[in-house]
């Protein structure tokens, strides 16, 4: 009896010892690094990579605790510069004037490799090139911002200026309706929005893009310089996880749509339109440059051309000279 008690005791001691040994060797899980991420004005299918990366655990597995915050572009740029947001998706054309005004931000990864702001018109309008806009009417939300810069660049490519056409403002973003109803011949919009909706409505549409003449920098991942120094590894992990999700969505757009619907259930009301918008968005993520250098790659030559173009505009928003090195960093890209 005593022998069996000794055996059981021995086994118990061994088990406890093993258990203690196991616990003692386990590395404590490091706390996840919190990252506050700024996205566009309202949640939408265009932010599917962020939603998918979050839902698939790409951020969590990279040791990140990500929270999203929506806001307009000007607000995001300032919040990123102040450090209130760690990283955000913001217009490249906003980064140039912001840095020229001393806001400490830097563009760290391309999301939209093509400039998404475009001019669109009904095919029946006869407008097929930028030169064809001369003497026509055009609707635009405001005579400022990325759409206005794109319009100036597009017209300049045909030797025109904004005074060569009649421009009406549609601050309520009613320019799509204005084109459909024939109030204006053309309008500015986003390649993944108004032209998609027109095509779905059965209206053949012509889209004029600026990429071939002036490669303006599209929306991308923007970080504050102090945040970049303080959280470089976490930010690098965030960029990698987001690019991973973008690749997933390029392969399987439906996964991106499902991720977006999980965040914004209202999108499920019209899945066909939302999928079309997502497909048009995916088309904006790649270019000849990203095909050669990888998704998210930043083209310094294109940035230099943009700086030169924007600095030379009569109503330039670039207050002081800036260099590409001040505007972009390659440090966070894989």
């Amino acid at each position: 009896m005593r022998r069996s008690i000794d055996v059981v005791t021995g086994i118990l001691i061994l088990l406890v010892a093993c258990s203690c040994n196991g616990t003692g060797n386990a590395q404590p899980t490091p706390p996840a690094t919190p990252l506050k991420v700024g996205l566009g004005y309202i949640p939408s299918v265009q932010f599917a990579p962020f939603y998918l990366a979050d839902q698939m655990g790409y951020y969590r597995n990279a040791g990140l605790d990500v929270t999203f915050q929506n806001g307009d572009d000007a607000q995001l740029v300032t919040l990123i510069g102040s450090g209130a947001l760690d990283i955000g998706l913001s217009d490249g054309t906003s980064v140039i004037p912001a840095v020229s005004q001393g806001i400490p931000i830097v563009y760290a990864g391309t999301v939209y490799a093509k400039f998404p702001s475009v001019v669109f018109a009904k095919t029946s309008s006869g407008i097929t090139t930028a030169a064809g806009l001369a003497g026509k009417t055009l609707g635009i939300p405001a005579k400022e911002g990325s759409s206005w810069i794109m319009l100036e660049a597009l017209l300049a490519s045909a030797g025109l200026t904004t005074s060569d056409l009649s421009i009406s403002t549609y601050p309520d973003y009613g320019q799509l309706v204005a084109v459909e109803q024939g109030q204006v011949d053309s309008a500015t919009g986003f390649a993944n929005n108004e032209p998609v909706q027109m095509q779905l409505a059965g209206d053949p549409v012509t889209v004029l893009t600026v990429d071939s003449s002036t490669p303006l920098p599209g929306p991308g991942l923007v970080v504050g310089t102090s945040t970049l120094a303080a959280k470089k590894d976490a930010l690098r992990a965030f960029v990698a996880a987001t690019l991973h999700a973008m690749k997933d969505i390029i392969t399987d757009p439906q996964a991106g749509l499902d991720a977006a619907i999980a965040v914004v259930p209202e999108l499920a009301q019209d899945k066909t339109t939302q999928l079309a918008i997502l497909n048009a968005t995916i088309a904006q993520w790649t270019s000849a440059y990203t095909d050669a250098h990888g998704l998210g790659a930043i083209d310094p030559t294109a940035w230099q051309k943009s700086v030169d173009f924007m600095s030379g505009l009569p109503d330039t928003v670039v207050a002081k000279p800036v260099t590409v090195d001040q505007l972009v960093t390659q440090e966070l890209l894989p």
Partner: protein
Amino acid sequence: MKRLQAVLPIAAAAVLFVVVWKLIVVVGNYPVFILPAPEVVASRFVRAWADGIMTPHTITTLSEVLIGFGVGAALALVVGYLLARSRLAERLLSPYLVAAQATPILALAPLIALWFGTGLTGKVLICALIVFFPVAVSTMVGIRSVDRGLLELGRSLRATRWQIMAKLEISAALPQILGGMRVGVTLAVIGAIVGEWAGADSGLGVLINLARGSLFDIPLMFATLLTIALIGVSLYLVVVLIERRLVGAR
């Protein structure tokens, strides 16, 4: 000496405001794009006026404010008088007036821009709408508070209806009416800016958006806010001066 005594507290408050502002910037070590120091804003204010950026936008906004206030206040005087003197008019109009006042002008402005365009008409309408309620209510209260004995006296002296209204009622109600106009004129400035945010090519509201969203020139944004505040204060003082001339200092 009396004038100096009146101006001294105002100047002291302004100095205190600037000192506290500067202290916040220094203690908080805020960069210019979060909170520019007062001297930075002052310098940008002078530069914006000197290089001509501010002038066309100020003229646009001031025109909208003055026309909108004129239209809104004139209509409000008529309606306010009607509300004071006609039970039927009060019953018919009051619910709509209160509903219009309760509807946020921020929500209405884009609709007005859609219906009336982004030109002067839409801005004037927004200013008039925002001015209308305080002036109409103050007119109504002022007319109703006119001493009944005074009105009886006028009638006994065979004054016509027009004479009673012009010489007795409106004169007696002037302090309240001008009180409403003090509020209305500052609200008109807000109305013009909101209207410009809903869509415009020019105006101080447009300049704020440009400075904030396209230029990222925060000192210019503050300089524009200062200009707007100065317009509001100046118009308020004009109404006060008119009040003093017509009613006397109280």
